[in-house]
């Protein structure tokens, strides 16, 4: 397979390089908003998101965003939803990216049979249509956020592994790595001391994208009714808004906020990844 060429895509943004920082800033602002919301959920949320009140209240006093079909406060759901959604996104992406990065680093450094095997495997996982497989996996492991996280991670490591490996192949030929080797540095030392720092940028950009991807996947799974019903993620909120007539009734205060939150948070991660784009242009797999 033609490896090197695939990864070589140049760096150049749509915004002039000066606005690069603005993009990053925008991403950071969006994300800090959500992260603060998630961390301080009990302080921000006006109610317990599980407490029942009158159903289908429109926005008003006491319930700034109204209530859902069984009378739970929507704003509180939204605030607590940030916790669950971001948690799923972060953890799934962390698992996928760190596994992918570790594999990419080591096989990129070691080469040989392991490299061949892992990259074939990566090709395989790269080619598998992700969503249907996550669905199948979740269905077999059964609903629950841990299973969703595991399923997303299992199917998400490949693209990171490929990109990191490609970068390692470039870095390992650089003089400082060669001289370290000549000085008799061990493999692990070189990987951790030289290769990891020099691929960190790629890994972080990839991780940021992976979070975005994981959040979208979770939303899709929830929409199909395979989410974790005991957890209030944004995806589950949307699921209930759809399945309990929120959309049909035109209760925009129910279905609009979670959708906007998902989109904004995903956008935030995409912008961040884009600003740090080492893997040029390709934000996605």
């Amino acid at each position, binding site marked *: 397979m033609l490896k090197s060429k695939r990864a070589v895509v140049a760096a150049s943004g749509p915004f002039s390089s000066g606005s690069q920082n603005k993009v990053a800033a925008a991403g950071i602002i969006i994300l800090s908003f959500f992260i603060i919301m998630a961390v301080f959920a009990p302080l921000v949320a006006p109610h317990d998101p*599980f407490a*029942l009140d009158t159903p289908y209240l429109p926005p008003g006093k006491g319930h700034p965003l109204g209530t859902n079909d*069984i009378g739970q406060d929507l704003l509180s759901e939204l605030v607590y939803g940030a916790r669950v959604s971001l948690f799923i996104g972060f953890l799934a992406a962390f698992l996928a990216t760190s596994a992918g990065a570790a594999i990419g680093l080591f096989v990129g450094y070691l080469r040989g049979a392991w490299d061949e095997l892992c990259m074939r495997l990566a090709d395989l996982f790269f080619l598998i249509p992700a969503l249907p497989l996550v669905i199948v996996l979740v269905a077999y492991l059964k609903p629950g956020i841990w299973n969703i996280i595991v399923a997303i991670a299992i199917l998400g490591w490949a693209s990171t592994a490929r990109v990191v490996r490609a970068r390692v192949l470039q870095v390992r030929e650089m003089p400082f790595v060669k001289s370290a080797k000549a000085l008799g540095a061990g493999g692990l030392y070189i990987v951790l001391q030289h290769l990891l720092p020099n691929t960190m940028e790629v890994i972080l950009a990839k991780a940021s994208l992976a979070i975005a991807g994981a959040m979208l996947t979770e939303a899709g799974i929830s929409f199909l*009714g395979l989410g974790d*019903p005991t957890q209030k993620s944004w995806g589950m909120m949307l699921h*209930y808004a759809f*399945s*309990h*007539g929120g959309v*049909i009734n035109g209760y925009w205060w129910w279905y609009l906020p979670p959708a906007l939150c998902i989109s904004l948070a995903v956008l935030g991660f995409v912008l961040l990844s884009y600003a740090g784009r080492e893997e040029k242009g390709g934000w996605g797999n």
Partner: protein
Amino acid sequence: MKPWKRFGFLVAFLLAVLLAGCGKQQAADPPATGEKTVVIAPKYEDDHLNPVLGYGQYGGSKFFNGLVRFDENLNLVPDLAESWEISPDGKIYTVKLRPGVKWHDGMEFTAHDVKFTYEKIRDPNVASPLKPYFDFVDGITVVSDHSIKIHLSKPYAPFLEKLVVGIVPMHLLDGKDMKTAEFNQHPVGTGPFKFVEWRKGEKLVMAANREYFRGKPKVDRVVVSFIPDENTRLLQLTKGEVDAAFLPPKMAAKAQSDKIKVYSVPTGEWCGLGLPSKNPLFRDVRLRQAIAYAIDKQAVVDKILDGKGEPASNPLRSNHRAYNPEAKKYPYDPGKARALLAEAGWKDSDGNGILDKDGRPFRFTLMYAADDVLRKDICTAVKTDLKKAGIDVELAGLSWDQIKPRMDADATLFFWATVYDVDDPNYQLWHSQFIGQGWNNPACYQNKKVDELLEKGRVTPEGGERKKIYAELQQILAEEQPVVFIAHMDHTYAASARIKGIKAQPEGHSGYLTEGLWWNLEEWELPE
């Protein structure tokens, strides 16, 4: 060609397609032949169309007829049978068949088809889900082309209603493997509708059988449209592409207008908390009764079921022919619940809001099938109500496969239904011989008297005595609350107001094409 221009062409092409599409909107309307077509959107699509393999409730369907059928009030009336006679010992059923009935392919229907069908159901290789209902059949004798005798090994009162199963044509299926026959996708029956076409995942088309022995259906064609997403189903209904649809109560309510009528179909379905007696916590009857008092069942019906249902205290609903109005009821009464719990020794000694006894807090896990939003909502309400009574409930949304091995230990939210004969499924639900057998008797309920009543009910012929037996059964179950019954539910359908002749029939919990709103499709009318 320059790429810009190419792009222009692409855009132009897309616009053209769009315009062509929009312009053709009128062409989609019914054809000029004046055929009357009804489009219905049920809950789900079947895997096959063979009653022997379990298509439709008890294997009934619109393509086939059974020997008997249910009328609007679920009384058994003749269908392919003209009359029947049950021997005094309840072991021999002699059925006279209606003469002159023709299969859709023109062949004559005879008693041999009946025998063939029942024997196929009993054939272990066919693995028919209806087999247990025919287990007591000892032999089937064709007396003449239009008369048949069925011998049972022991009296089994519910047997007559099992004869609603659709009869399949022997001349098309003899010698074929029932499980894989092409017939399962292209059925030929005696029913009011003939099979036309089945596009999997999309639609099933049936046409009126003009030679139908009970008279030609009033519409010419029925299209069964399969729309998995409920929102989409509702949109199709409001757009007029679909004439009648199965919808959850809250969506159906939304569909209501001067053009669309909502039909509430009472079901025999109940939901309740299975409190397995193998868990020592649930052994005290006072505690189970306290839970029954502590749940605001009316609020569950009003808020969660959108008013479509009624509170339940025993497995039969008030519209069932064997219902016993005397059986104990448990209206919402937190005071009584507290008193009962105190009597049983549960007090809040540490003042944390949770009752305790011997230093152990009153806490249990309630499992429910996670894929069902309704169940989650009911469990959430139960948790909230019980919290007020000082009981801490931990919810666990699981899959059935995860629930199954834990059913003996933890509480579970169950949905079961008694629509037709009381024996089904109450015999399996409460008889102690079934403890530990899969989904049977999930509460591990053990009561000699109940076992006795269930056995007696099985063999006693339909009538006053049988009703008394089941009245007593209800009294015991209501008193004991092996399952804390919460509510009986309704199903909701919405249909175009143009359709006349809809009569809803009470249904079970599956929404088969022979039940609920669809049961009398052949009588629906579409006036000009």
